[in-house]
């Protein structure tokens, strides 16, 4: 990736973060912390990796994305809006009656959403089903899913992990957004899933570990995933919950609460400054 490309992705990710803050603020509810931690990964997927067509969201041969950690819908919606699936202005309708932007993703409301999700542990299985379907249809379609690190406490994640490797689904990539915080505390305080890479490796996956906020490492991971044959790939992405908004970083309480007007102003100042520096 050249410097210009990288800067362009950083700028987009910064705008995505603004979209996250805006939508959660307007809704007075939602999940900013995990949305901000996954913003770089999801931005990279939609702007660099996935074969999609915003003008034809249901194009049969498109790559698929399942947001297994469905509560970070603000992240997905902001990315989809900036990618051209619907107007960025629409992010302000998030979680409101009549909005196409439901609290958790719904494939029937929102252009670009490939699968409804929100109940943790289920998205990875639907992604497995899609990857299996792509193979069965003999189509070169790749399937991507993002899970939370707390989410992998769901037993179904490991049912899916076992099945994906048994079926040699090398067209499937699961990203674990490892921000180390779940609602009740740190992962260790609640119910430690560590070591995560070893667990996926033991289930037969190709495993790549990266910094979730470094686009060079993100790119390397997806290149490695694309090159890997016969196995699904798990990208364990070390991230910072609340990344990019000073007072939200590494704070559990920003998992599922919205900023007030004052906090919103500070968050937007943080992001506006970051954007100005990038565009400098």
């Amino acid at each position, binding site marked *: 990736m050249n410097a210009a490309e990288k800067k362009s992705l950083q700028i987009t990710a910064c705008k995505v973060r603004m979209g996250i803050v805006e939508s959660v603020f307007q809704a007075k509810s939602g999940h900013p912390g995990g949305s901000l931690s996954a913003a770089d990964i999801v931005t990279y997927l939609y702007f660099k990796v996935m074969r999609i067509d915003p003008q034809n969201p249901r194009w049969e041969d498109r790559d698929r994305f399942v947001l297994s950690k469905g509560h970070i819908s603000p992240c997905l919606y902001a990315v989809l809006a900036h990618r051209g699936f619907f107007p960025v202005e629409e992010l302000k309708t998030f979680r409101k009656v009549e909005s196409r932007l439901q609290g958790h993703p*719904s494939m*029937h409301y929102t252009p670009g959403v*490939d699968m409804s999700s929100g109940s943790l542990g289920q998205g990875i299985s*639907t992604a*497995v089903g899609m990857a*299996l379907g792509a193979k*069965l249809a003999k189509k070169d379609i790749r399937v991507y899913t993002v899970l939370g690190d707390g989410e992998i406490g769901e037993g*179904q994640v490991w*049912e899916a992990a076992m*099945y994906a490797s048994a079926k040699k689904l090398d067209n499937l990539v699961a990203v674990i957004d490892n921000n180390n915080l779940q609602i009740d505390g740190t992962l260790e305080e609640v119910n430690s899933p560590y070591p995560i890479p070893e667990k996926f490796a033991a289930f037969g996956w190709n495993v790549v570990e990266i910094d979730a906020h470094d686009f060079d490492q993100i790119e390397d991971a997806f290149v490695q995933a694309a090159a890997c044959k016969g196995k699904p790939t798990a990208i364990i992405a070390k991230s910072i919950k609340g990344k990019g908004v000073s007072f939200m970083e590494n704070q559990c309480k920003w998992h599922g609460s919205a900023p007030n007007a004052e906090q919103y102003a500070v968050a937007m100042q943080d992001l506006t400054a970051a954007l100005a520096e990038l565009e400098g």
Partner: protein
Amino acid sequence: MADIVKIATRDSYGKALVELGAVNDKIVVLDADLAAATKTAGFKAAYPDRFFDSGIAESNMMCVAGGLSTMGFTVFASTFAMFAAGRAFEQVRNTIGYPHLNVKIGATHAGISVGEDGASHQCCEDIALMRTIPGMTIINPADDVEARQAVYAAAAMEGPVYMRFGRLAVPVIFDADYKFEIGKGVQLVDGTDVTIIATGLMVGEALAAAELLKAEGISAAVVNMATIKPIDRDIIVNAAKKTGAIVTAEEHNIIGGLGGAVAEVVCETVPVPVVRLGVEDTFGRSGPAVELLHVFGLDAAHIVEKAKAAVAMKK
């Protein structure tokens, strides 16, 4: 009487899947390590490329079915009713029901007639569970003829369907020219004093009960209600108007199943006595299936009693 042919509806399911697979290459079948019991093994043998065994992981299987369906396939996901509707309820609700995906759930071994395996495997709650999911179609066929047609009808429609099949071989009661239609009850016997609305293996018992009642001077109509959802409101309303009393008969908890569905319609339209026959809000137990059906009151003799009670409640 000529020899009665008995076929388990799970066998009908397996046979229909093989027939469907031959004419439709978009049919995909999933199972969770029960292919021999659910009878999907025939499809597996005929179309191994389109058969996927998730192993003992029903939650994963239901969501894999959802994902597969979005890739243009008509997916049949099979396991015992206990695990399809029970264990995987939330997966069915959120990943099949809510997105209204084209997944057909083939739930076998429903009800008390599982027999010797006992209560842990005798699912008498599945209709109640599935009925609360918006947009879910529920079919509980009475015999081989209807079960095979139900599988075809499910494949032909878009959206989620829950099909309920039994382990026990039950009499074939319909002729080959019988026509099953989703959402339509079928009037099998006309009557004037009471209507027995039955589903699944209780339909045969209802027909026998009507004969017994006739001998006692009670004219009982019999309706086969294979589709529990969407329920055929018209046939229920007409039955209530015409006979003024209704008995429901099902191999399911009396709470939330056919009895509940019929009572809901009757209460809101033509309030007449409705007496429910089913599993009396209790768990099952081990024993030979046919014996158990009698123990739990799921037979013609008990329908007769309920019918008399319903008639007595008429003004």
